[in-house]
């Protein structure tokens, strides 16, 4: 049974097909409004995530399907001590496809080994979040018309940000991608990502602590949140949280077709005064997330039939 646990479970060609499907859904929504009639998506969210869960639910409803599930572990049988494997086997009797978020890394993979229906990893701790990466790739393709010959800047928490690691990994399979890593010393991209992904794939990259210096070279700026829960002490968090705030003045020397992305939610790392700038793409990115998930649900349900 085909599932999606890691973005690398998809080939570049399959990602292209998903992006094409998502684009077709955007252009012809009526064509897809009954595609999942009679099908059920189970959203198994063992930790809260309003955005991702609602995106999956909206995606399934727009395909004409139905949704069942829970949004926190306390309201599931996990609170009684049921294993992920047993939950997956049980839900396979009720639904046609599963979207699972779990605080423990690898839990959706365990589910996929035991379910008889496709499982989509909707985030497992700090590990993988492939539908966010699919969303990011769709956004890049729609905004830039291609996923190649681009200089992509990543700014903020590059140490713990799983969306950053995952998108860098996905981009390493495309041609002529240059990466600019913008972060304070404490939050630099881990060396294993540099070695295992960037160096291994011959991706050109530079590291800098200055957002202002980097901005003029960028085609895409991927901002991230400096998360309070990643720090052992409050002092470090408070010292670093405001390090990389994108304000209108910093965009003075940016390209006119820069694409500013953010996985959201933001705290204050992008000033709200940028929201109306045509280069701000982060709310469009949220919308594209729904279409990327629609395309993925369709693909996995189609493959499950075979």
């Amino acid at each position: 049974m085909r599932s999606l646990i890691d973005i690398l479970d998809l080939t570049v060609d399959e990602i292209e097909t998903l992006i094409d499907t998502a684009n077709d859904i955007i252009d012809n929504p009526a064509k897809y409004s009954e595609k999942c009639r009679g099908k059920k998506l189970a959203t198994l969210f063992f930790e809260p995530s309003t955005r991702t869960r609602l995106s999956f639910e909206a995606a399934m409803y727009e395909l004409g399907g139905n949704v069942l599930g829970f949004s926190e572990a306390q309201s599931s049988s996990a609170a009684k001590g049921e294993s992920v494997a047993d939950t997956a086997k049980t839900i396979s009797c009720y639904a046609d496809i599963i979207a699972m978020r779990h605080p423990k890394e690898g839990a959706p993979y365990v589910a996929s080994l035991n379910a008889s229906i496709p499982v989509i990893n909707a985030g497992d701790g700090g590990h993988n979040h492939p539908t966010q990466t699919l969303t990011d790739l769709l956004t890049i393709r729609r905004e830039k018309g291609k996923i190649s010959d681009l200089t992509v800047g990543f700014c903020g928490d590059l140490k713990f940000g799983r969306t950053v690691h995952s998108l860098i990994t996905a981009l390493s399979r495309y041609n002529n991608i240059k990466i600019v890593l913008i972060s304070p010393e404490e939050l630099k991209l881990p060396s294993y990502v540099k070695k295992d992904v960037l160096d291994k794939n011959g991706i050109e990259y530079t590291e800098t602590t200055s957002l202002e210096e980097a901005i003029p070279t960028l085609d895409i700026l991927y901002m991230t949140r400096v998360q309070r829960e990643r720090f052992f002490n409050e002092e470090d968090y408070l010292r670093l949280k405001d390090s990389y705030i994108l304000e209108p003045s910093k965009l003075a020397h940016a390209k006119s077709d820069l694409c500013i992305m953010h996985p959201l939610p933001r705290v204050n790392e992008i000033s709200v005064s940028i929201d109306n700038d045509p280069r701000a793409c982060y709310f469009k990115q949220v919308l594209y997330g729904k279409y990327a998930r629609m395309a993925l649900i369709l693909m996995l349900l189609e493959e499950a039939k075979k």
Partner: protein
Amino acid sequence: MNIDSINNGIVIDHITAGRGMRLYELLGLDKADCSIAIIKNAASGKLGKKDIIKIDADISIDFDVIGYVDPGITVNIIKGGILTEKKTIEMPERLTNVIKCKNPRCITSVEQELDHVFKLTDRNECVYRCIYCETKAK
């Protein structure tokens, strides 16, 4: 030093000097009730020094453990005093319940019944990663 030759059993040879005891423990030989000899720092033309384990019984051993601890080790199977099989053990593609994932955020840290499975992701660098959380084995 002389250790009697064995009639039916297994000789694990060409163990990198110093790794014999670790292999002995990982293979669970401390629980076996047959005669077992661990020879440390034996002279070796190939390695200079080597460890050897001689097991005087035809017991079942996990070759994956051997390949993980010290790839390149030779295993000799002896039956009726004759060498019947000699094989060099390479790094296995997968390791099941040989080592445990140390990542406290891994699903294996809370679900006790799950097998601890590692896969070989880089043969040149001898890197094994947990199949669930991808944490590198130490």
